[in-house]
């Protein structure tokens, strides 16, 4: 069939309003990467098995390759780009507590799986700050890492818990919107 006309979808990304013109068949993952240039969200398998594309939609971890951009209408989307805590005094991007724990525990090597791991773990700890090792492993069972062997990843997530127990660390504050409706 001929391609149906694009339409405008509006949602919030990392605290900022976004308006994007998309074809109905565009996945949320491709919308984030190509239309909004938020390329931190990685795309591996494109059919739900690897977890690299995991983002947070309305407070819950979801596969952005298994969701259409048009389905994000009115939703609140959080991606890896929003996980840092802004800029530190030196002007460098400051790591959030989960990211800092990943660095301490060598929980990444090539980094391809890392955005998905971090967003899944961030969603988990935001809802369940007391999650134990078994629960962390269960929640991360759908995120594949071909480098680390997972042990450092699980340790890093467990080590980040105090920051969440003290009150969930959020994303960046809203500044300006992104309009890609052309």
């Amino acid at each position: 069939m001929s391609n149906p006309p694009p339409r405008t979808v509006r949602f919030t990304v990392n605290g900022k309003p976004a308006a994007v013109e998309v074809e109905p068949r565009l996945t949320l993952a491709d919308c984030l990467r190509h239309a909004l240039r938020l390329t931190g969200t990685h795309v591996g398998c494109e059919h739900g098995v690897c977890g690299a594309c995991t983002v947070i939609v309305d407070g819950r971890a979801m596969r952005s390759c298994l969701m259409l951009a048009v389905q994000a209408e009115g939703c609140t989307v959080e991606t890896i780009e929003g996980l840092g805590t802004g800029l530190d005094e030196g002007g460098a991007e400051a790591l959030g507590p989960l990211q800092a724990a990943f660095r301490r525990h060598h929980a990444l090597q090539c980094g391809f799986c890392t955005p998905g791991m971090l967003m899944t773990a961030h969603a988990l700890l935001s809802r369940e700050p007391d999650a134990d090792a078994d629960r962390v492993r269960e929640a991360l069972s759908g995120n594949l890492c071909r480098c680390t062997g997972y042990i450092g990843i699980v340790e890093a997530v467990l080590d980040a818990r105090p920051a969440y127990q003290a009150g969930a660390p959020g994303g960046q504050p809203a500044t300006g919107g992104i309009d890609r409706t052309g």
Partner: protein
Amino acid sequence: MKLPAFDYAAPATMAEAIELLERHGGDARPLAGGQSLMPVLAFRLAQPSMLVDIGRIPGLDSIEIGEDGVRLGARVRWCDILEHPSLRSVHPLLVEAIGHVAHYPIRNRGTVGGSLAHADPAAEMPGIAFTCEATMVIAGRAGTRMVAARDFFTGPLETVIGPAELLVEVRLPPWPAARRWGFEEFARQRGAFALAAVAAFYDERDGVAIGVHLGVIGATGVVQRLPGAEAALEGRPVDAPGIAAAVAAARAEVDPPEDAEASSAYRRSLVGTMVERALAAATAR
């Protein structure tokens, strides 16, 4: 792979959704959580002209618990079942089985209705609906109709839902609090589809098992009960000889296919082991 081109609508009412499906003939597909349909589209196993997103239709996401059992709206997600405050005590078998469905992020979108309509013989929800003799409520232009689980699944990935119909609810019969039950699954990876799983339940009267239900998921090409194994245990105590008789009958009556995952003999053996473990778990509950 990228998805084929299709049009998309998110109607606000059930009537509108059914109208849209009807207007597109068999060419439109309902979209619920997308956790099965999106991979199907990515592999281009289907190329519908239109997706009718049922996500904005009100009233499809309730969990109702009453004298007549548990009613799950089609859009109830796996996470809703797992996080429900009382469902685990009201219907422990359901909640235990759903804990084996997919992974954390997938459970945040995947729905009861989507799973039943997709009718994967390795999926937990169709297996539970079939084993528990659930009733499906299906809506079409002429109103709703009720279909018993044994008539609902017509083959692997096939149900009686018509092209202009929507599944709106599944009703699980009442579950006596004292019922004995077990659910055991074997998968290669946590959250992966089962190589074999067994759902078992019975009521105990005067030390013997009454109303034995044994359902097998994943090992054979269809959702099925194990009538031979059920008969072997019916009216008997669930002790070592009773369980052994059920296991032997189960292994004799299943005919698993051979595929890249496992041989037929391996799966047959696994079904017996799952029956054994599920019944052992039931006696301890």
